[in-house]
């Protein structure tokens, strides 16, 4: 799904480039007698169907107008920050809860929404995603959601007389048992992919936010966090034991689907929507053959799931229409409105009352486990300087034998710090 999302974003970007010139773009709001709220977000985000649906529903229902301001994705962070600095901050600001949000002085500019009535309706994962380190809710998650975990071929596993793992020990036992049957236990796309790593890092930083703060403030490095080393060690051991198969260094995004569909590989660390968008439909095994269990990579005994990266709506506390903005959020969080907006959208629910979306049976079957072990996507979005490319490079060095475990951890630190320096340099006027 993420790849599909990325493709959709590219397509949208291309279309936007065709339709508009570079720079900001302001969509016309319907005329009326109500208040006009300004909404600022990435151009492609604001063009999502469920977004436009809820915007339309709002304007129709309230008579207020929404002034939609957007920037190209590549310019968004800088341009939006400039708007805030220039006193042109919107009433409602759409942003992923990632490290870039720190550029907008959250405490000064946005309301905390802990007391909003719709908070109780949020799923645990969605709620957690939108909270800051102190537990304050920063925005309303209104976005496509997904669950990333260890998706396995339950049909194959059943035929082999094996059970899914419930803990790290069993997972290792399962991998070994699968390896003994001749199947590749885990499809590991080491060639340019690294999201598996962020799955493993989520529980480290989600469970211990102080580590994240120290890491981002450079008080510590990856090397100072034992779980990071444990995770790298597990990856190295798994590769040595053949759990990734024999050609994992050549395995990339494109090889995941054939491997799972053919039954060559039994498990993959992926997300649910990937099965709708990328799994070969004419393979030996299809969507119904798969089930979900947590990711076990040495960082959480009972495993972990990663929740989706959600776009959230935040209210400018310094705006002219704070109340109207809060009302807009409540409008969006109303079950009939979000069900209308997400009707037919394949997504994991962000709201407990969400019923019209299409949710995977795999996720539903694992709901209890997900509820127990889901973590907010923390690593990729909140570690300053985190780069999936850098992480992939560091692990490629490890798995190709060019470095050892400690060397790999060192490379993770080295690349991350270099990325920070690069970002700082880019931010210099």
């Amino acid at each position, binding site marked *: 799904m993420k790849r599909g999302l990325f493709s959709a974003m590219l397509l949208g970007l291309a279309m936007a480039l065709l339709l508009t010139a570079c720079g900001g773009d302001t969509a016309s709001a319907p005329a009326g007698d109500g208040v006009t709220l300004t909404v600022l977000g990435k151009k492609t985000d604001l063009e999502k169907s469920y977004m436009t649906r809820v915007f339309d529903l709002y304007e129709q229902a309230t008579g207020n107008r929404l002034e939609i301001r957007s920037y190209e994705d590549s310019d968004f962070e800088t341009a939006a920050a400039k708007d805030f600095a220039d006193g042109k901050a919107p009433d409602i600001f759409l942003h992923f809860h990632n490290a870039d949000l720190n550029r907008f002085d959250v405490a000064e500019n946005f309301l905390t929404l802990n007391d909003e009535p719709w908070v109780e309706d949020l799923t645990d994962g969605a709620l957690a995603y939108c909270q800051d380190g102190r537990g304050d809710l920063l925005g309303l998650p209104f976005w496509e959601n997904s669950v990333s975990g260890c998706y396995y071929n339950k049909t194959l596993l059943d035929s082999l007389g*094996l059970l899914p793992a419930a803990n790290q020990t069993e997972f290792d036992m*399962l991998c070994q048992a699968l390896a*003994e049957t001749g199947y590749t236990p885990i499809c590991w796309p080491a060639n340019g992919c690294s999201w598996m790593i962020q799955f493993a890092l989520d529980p480290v930083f989600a469970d211990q936010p102080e580590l994240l703060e120290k890491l981002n403030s450079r008080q510590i490095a990856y090397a100072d966090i034992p779980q990071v080393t444990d995770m790298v060690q597990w990856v190295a051991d798994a590769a040595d034991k053949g759990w990734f198969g024999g050609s994992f260094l050549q395995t990339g995004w494109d090889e995941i689907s054939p491997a799972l569909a053919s039954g060559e590989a039994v498990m993959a660390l992926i997300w649910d929507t990937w099965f709708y968008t990328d799994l070969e439909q004419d393979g030996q095994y299809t969507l119904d053959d798969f089930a979900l269990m947590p990711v076990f990579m040495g960082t959480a005994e009972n495993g972990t799931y990663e929740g989706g990266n959600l776009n959230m709506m935040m209210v400018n506390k310094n705006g002219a229409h704070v109340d109207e903005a809060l009302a807009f959020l409540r409008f969006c969080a109303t079950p009939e409105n979000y069900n209308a907006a997400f009707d037919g959208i394949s997504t994991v629910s962000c709201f407990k009352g969400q019923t019209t979306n299409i949710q995977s049976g795999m996720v539903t079957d694992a709901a209890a486990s997900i509820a127990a072990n889901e973590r907010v996507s923390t690593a990729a979005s909140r570690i300053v300087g985190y780069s999936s490319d850098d992480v992939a490079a560091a692990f490629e060095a490890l798995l190709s034998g060019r470095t050892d475990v400690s060397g790999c951890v060192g490379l993770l630190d080295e690349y991350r710090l270099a990325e920070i320096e690069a970002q700082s340099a880019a931010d210099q006027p």
Partner: protein
Amino acid sequence: MKKWYKKLLTPVLLCAVMAAAVAIGAVYFGFISKRIDEDSAVHLQEIYGQVNNSFGSFVDRNWGLLNEWGRRFELAEGLDRASVTAMVDQERERWGFSEFYFLSADGIGMTPAGEKSGMDLCGSGDGQSPREPVMAGQTLPSGQEMVVFAAPVASGEYDGFGFDAIAVSYTSADLAQSLNVDAFSGKANCFVIDDEGGVLLSTRTGGNVFRNYLSYLRAASDLTERELADIQADWAAGTSGLVRCRIGDVVSCILYQPVGYQDFVLLSAVPQSAVSAGFLSVQRTTVAVLVIIFLLVGAAAIGLLLLRGQRLSRKNQTELQYRERMFDVLSSTVDDIFLMLDTGEYRVDYVSPNIERLLGIRVEDARADIRVMEKCTIRDNVIIPREELDSIPLNGNKYWECEYRHQGTGEGRWYRMTLYRMSIQDVEKYIIVLSDRTLEQRMNQQLQDALNAAQSANEAKSNFLSNMSHDIRTPMNAIVGFSLLLEKEADDPEKVREYTRKITASSHHLLSLINDVLDMSKIESGKTSLNVDRFSLPELLEELSIILLPQAKAKDQTFTIHVQGAPPEQILGDKLRLNQILINLLSNAIKYTPEGGRIEFLVCEVDHSAQSQYVKLRFVVRDNGIGMSEQFQREVFAPFSREINSVTNKIQGTGLGMAITKNLVDLMGGVIQVESKLGQGSAFTVELTFALPEQEEKDTWYRQKITRMLVVDDEEEICLDIRELMRGTGVDVSIRTDGAAAVEAAVQAHRNGSDFHVILLDWKMPGMDGVQTARAIREKVGRHVPILVLTSYDWSDIEAQARDAGIDAFMPKPFFASTFWQTIKPLFTREESRPVEAALPAENVLAGRLFLVAEDNEMNAEILTEVLSMEGARCEVAVNGRQAVEMFEASQPGRYDMILMDVQMPVMNGYEATRAIRASAHPEAASIPIVAMTANTFAEDVRNAMDAGMDAHLAKPIDLDAMRQIVGRLLAPGAGADDDKGDSIS
């Protein structure tokens, strides 16, 4: 073949021993492994038998517990939650189960806390409660796998929930903990499975991922379907079994035993390595110990071998070093160079250090590239042609003689290069030995030279003997022949005189031949010595002129003597030998110069300073005769050498003259050189150094008031020589080159009142000769000026005419101041001058004389008697020295005029007799002239004669003229016995 066998024997034996050890080991360890497998199986069965028993006990206890609880519940009057909960909690602590359930008849289970769940314990799917104790797997709503033990009890009710059975559940972790199965270090999987392979529980700590182990074995093991079916049949039949199979890459033991409850089977899967670990440990230990022992023994053996080898190697190394050192020392002391070359690349493996000494090549340079030796080659640019090297067979050798030049000194040396090709430890090598043969070569060369010289000398002597045979026979033939003719023609006085003259000439030639042979023999034997005494160089030249001028005149040759510079007149040397040298050279010049030719004799001073006590004189004899070939010039001083050509064949000679001359020059420390061109003439140059006597006073000219003189010679060079010779005398020398000019000069001087004090005229001049010039001067000037004639010719024929013309005296060329003074001195002292005549023998000098002749040879005595008789003299003969002495002592004073003393005589030789006479009391013992008359003609003989007290020496055969001269001199009025002592005439 034998070497090959011996070389391979040891490794083959070692290999055989090792192979035997390995084979024994393999058999042994195969047996051990089999026993280990068997024992492991028994061991495994024992372990899991105990596990099975424990599990059975565990099951029994649970069912016992449930029965007990059933009875307790049955007896209880109502079950309240608190008491039940307390009891369950208490028992949970004791038994370790997870949960307790009341089971209703419809298969619903309820915990003491009131939580309900459906439980299908009978496997029928209809949810009935068990009617007998059962053990079943159960998956909780949370997904957790549980094992449930249930037993029927009396119907009852708990908290409104009717039940007829009760149950307890265990998680796998609980069971594992309860069963406490931890065999094989956690590597074993132990399951309780049903007869379909479904896993009821796993004793593995940490969890279980196996749902159906039969399915897993089908997928993961190498068991066939038939084998799997057999196994499953065993399970169904309640039969135990043990199979080994490969699961993945691991060989595992699958042991199954019926539990005894329902159809459950206790199955354990253990890696074979874990099962046999203990045995394998023992086996490994045993192997390790054996290997260690084997290695230790082997190491010890190898160590011993190495030690022995090391010792042997060290010993060999030491011996090698000794040998190398000794070889280096040896090679440094000999003149043989040793090299070892690789046959392939000609790389130098060894070179002896003496190569630097012998060839001037550094050892390291030779080691680096053998071709460095090419610099030493003299004739060839390569040391050894490669094809020559390659042509040497293995174990063969070749040798060459070669000459190398020492790079340091440039000295050429001869070597014999011997090259061996041999195999050293299967590697072919060239060994080169360069043996210095320089001394041998030189010795051979010297021997060859000596041989050539000997052959040449032999050839020369053969030639000489041949020549001598011819030369001796020729005069002897003449003597014999003319003697016969003389006898026949005794009545014809003319023929008698003619024959007698020819016999005399032949005799003289034969005599000279014998003299030369004897002289050469004497010189070669090293018995010749020099008799150094003061003599006058002018006198020597005068004597030479006297001797040689007639010979030149006889061949109508021009013979001139030039004196250049002012050589000292008195010198110290062996006049006799110098005379001999110069006569040889001059007589040869005359002999080998055709009639009408020219012979020049030049004397000059080469090196003399006023302070020096020595003078080096150069004597040059130059002719325009037949000359010599270049080849003969190189041999001219060799004895018995004569150039053979049409001219020389007609000239008598012994071939010894130049050899004698050369030896005499060498004896006197001088050098002799020859320049000659065939047909153009020759020039012999002799340079000799003489000591000088103390100088005499030379101002006598001035005291005699001789200050001006006129020299007249058509050869101006001679005039200038005379002027040069007169320098230092204070006499002004005027020169004229013809007679008329001389007359004019004399007249003019006379008119000026400054007459010349003496006039010296050449005899033969174009125009007015010397006599005519003298006559003219006398006519115009008068007779008061002495006029002398300087001539190279015999003036006896013109003497009367010359004196008539007014010539006062004659002087022989060359001009010497001393001779000149001696000649003119009487003229100025007004004494009658007979300068020349005095030297000439009187015609009747022998007439009336009485000689005492000591001669042991009767014939010689008779000849002498007859000769003297013919001259009007008489003699008395003594037959030995003693008799001569006696006769002299017995004689009256004045009886004998002279004693002619032979030297070699019996009783008393001539020397002893002379000494006896001189020592006698006879009044004339000291004054009586004694003349040696002997065949001993060498200078030593002359000197011995003089030393013995004799006054002169006459060589036999007696030359009558020589005798006349000596007698005339010794018996001349006023002549003392000491005057001119030492004259020798042969």
